[in-house]
């Protein structure tokens, strides 16, 4: 591919972009993140609140999903408490789908949890198995990228930063031409770098800090995060970032040539578009 490296007049060319390892690990990340989020919400339901203290001090509670009846009433309600504010969420959070066709008092609804019915033990089984799937898929991908010298195409370089805003304007249809770039455009690089080098490691690290066994081996890790309950809070926030990323990712996959995008993640072949190149 050396002959087309760095060229910017390649629109329409079909190139082999994603190796089998990259494609497989992509789908394994997708599957494991889906299972991890759903089983994670199942686990969260067992203690549906986030505390900023290991003392179990109710004054340090920052977030909670509660269910019950309002004073003087008999009707079940669900509510969310966030930094001192409460919101009525009956039917969605707090009093909601029990995963078996009925309704009950539980934080996240059955259609969002794995398993759907309340079962902490099983949620943990799913979570801890797919945590390994995610980690091993990440390791396989890292080895593959190193072996094929693929990092240079993906890792953000100083000259990519000025191109981020123009690329964003192009996505927002406020600019006609995207800035010329290599295999990945500057916005893709930035997003994937944040996901791969910030969110993924933080998801793993904040999860490990919740384990009393790991904490006994690597306590400084828990201390840096602010304690076990703070780690639990960060773990939850990172989950929200992943959910947010998922919607952005879906939006862009759908609006930037859905079939071409899907094909590239299934067969590896990608038709280059405007501004696309091959290389760093």
């Amino acid at each position, binding site marked *: 591919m050396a002959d087309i490296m760095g060229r910017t007049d390649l629109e329409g060319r079909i190139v082999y972009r994603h190796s089998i390892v990259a494609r497989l690990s992509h789908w394994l990340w997708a599957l494991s993140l889906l299972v991890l989020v759903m089983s994670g919400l199942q*686990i969260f339901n067992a*203690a549906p609140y986030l505390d900023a203290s*290991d*003392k179990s001090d109710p004054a340090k509670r920052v977030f909670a999903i509660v269910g019950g009846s309002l004073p003087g009433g008999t009707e079940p309600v669900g509510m969310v408490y966030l930094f001192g504010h409460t919101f009525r969420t009956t039917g969605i959070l707090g009093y909601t789908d029990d995963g078996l066709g009925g309704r009950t008092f539980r934080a996240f609804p059955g259609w969002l949890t794995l398993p*759907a019915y309340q079962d902490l033990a099983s949620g943990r089984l799913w979570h801890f198995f797919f945590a390994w799937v995610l980690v091993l898929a990440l390791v396989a991908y890292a080895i593959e990228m190193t072996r094929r010298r693929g990092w240079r195409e993906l890792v953000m370089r100083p000259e990519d930063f000025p191109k981020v805003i123009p690329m964003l304007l192009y996505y927002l249809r406020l600019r006609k031409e995207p800035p010329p770039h290599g295999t990945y455009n500057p916005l893709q690089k930035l997003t994937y770098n944040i996901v791969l080098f910030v969110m993924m490691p933080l998801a793993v690290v904040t999860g490990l800090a919740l384990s*009393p*066994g790991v904490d006994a081996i690597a306590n400084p890790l828990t201390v840096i995060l602010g304690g076990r309950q703070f780690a639990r809070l960060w773990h939850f926030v990172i989950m929200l970032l992943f959910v947010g990323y998922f919607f952005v990712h879906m939006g862009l996959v759908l609006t930037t040539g859905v079939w071409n995008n899907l094909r590239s993640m299934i067969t590896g072949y990608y038709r280059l578009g405007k501004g696309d190149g091959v290389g760093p």
Partner: protein
Amino acid sequence: MKRRLFVSSSLSAIALTGCGVGNALTQNQTVRTILNSAETIDYHLIGTRGMAKEYTEADISPTFRTNGFATPSSSLYIGYVEDGFASYRLVVDGLVEHKRAFSIAQLRAMPLVTQITRHDCVEGWSVIGKFRGVRLGHVLSIVKPRPEARYVIFHCMDVDDTGTPYYESLDLTQAAHPQTILALDLNDKPIDPDHGAPVRLKIPTQLGYKSAKWVNRIEVASTFSHLYSGKGGYWEDNGYNWYAGI
């Protein structure tokens, strides 16, 4: 309107199918066996190495939250509470050279250690408390486990709604860990009935359900498969991992 109805009913049908698939997979024995393989990896990789962080007096929680079964209400236990645990004996038997039954006074005469450690519940919350008691390893050194011994099983006085007693188990490595203690005091007072009086196990390197309360018999054994559903503990028999370090 029709279209909206179609879309919303399709979405709920997909959600329902998703739930059904998730539930069915969760209950499938093969799937559970595969998922459970992570426990073996974690047990060997993390195990019971290292020392749980010890906190200061200032870190102690105002109230030590309780969890698990209700305080035992059997006539045996009520009797112990009424005589201030004078008639209570901690039986240590099974695969040991010297079977023993220790009174509280005998346990208190042993070398006592203090730890201010975090209690991590499987549900996700934590609480910090000061525990004082005898190292389990010390008690085991008195009774001397036989060479074929592999596990230490804790039989408890509390029962669930159906009358099934609570029990737990550790392997010998976990039992010999210096922070694994038979706690007699919590926050400078003898442990009260709600927190497991008079003797509770405290193992800060694992989740709270391992720290069995109301222990009155310790059985040293080569296996735990002969007990109840054979998984080595009450919660283990109900689907939770035997290795509770994660």
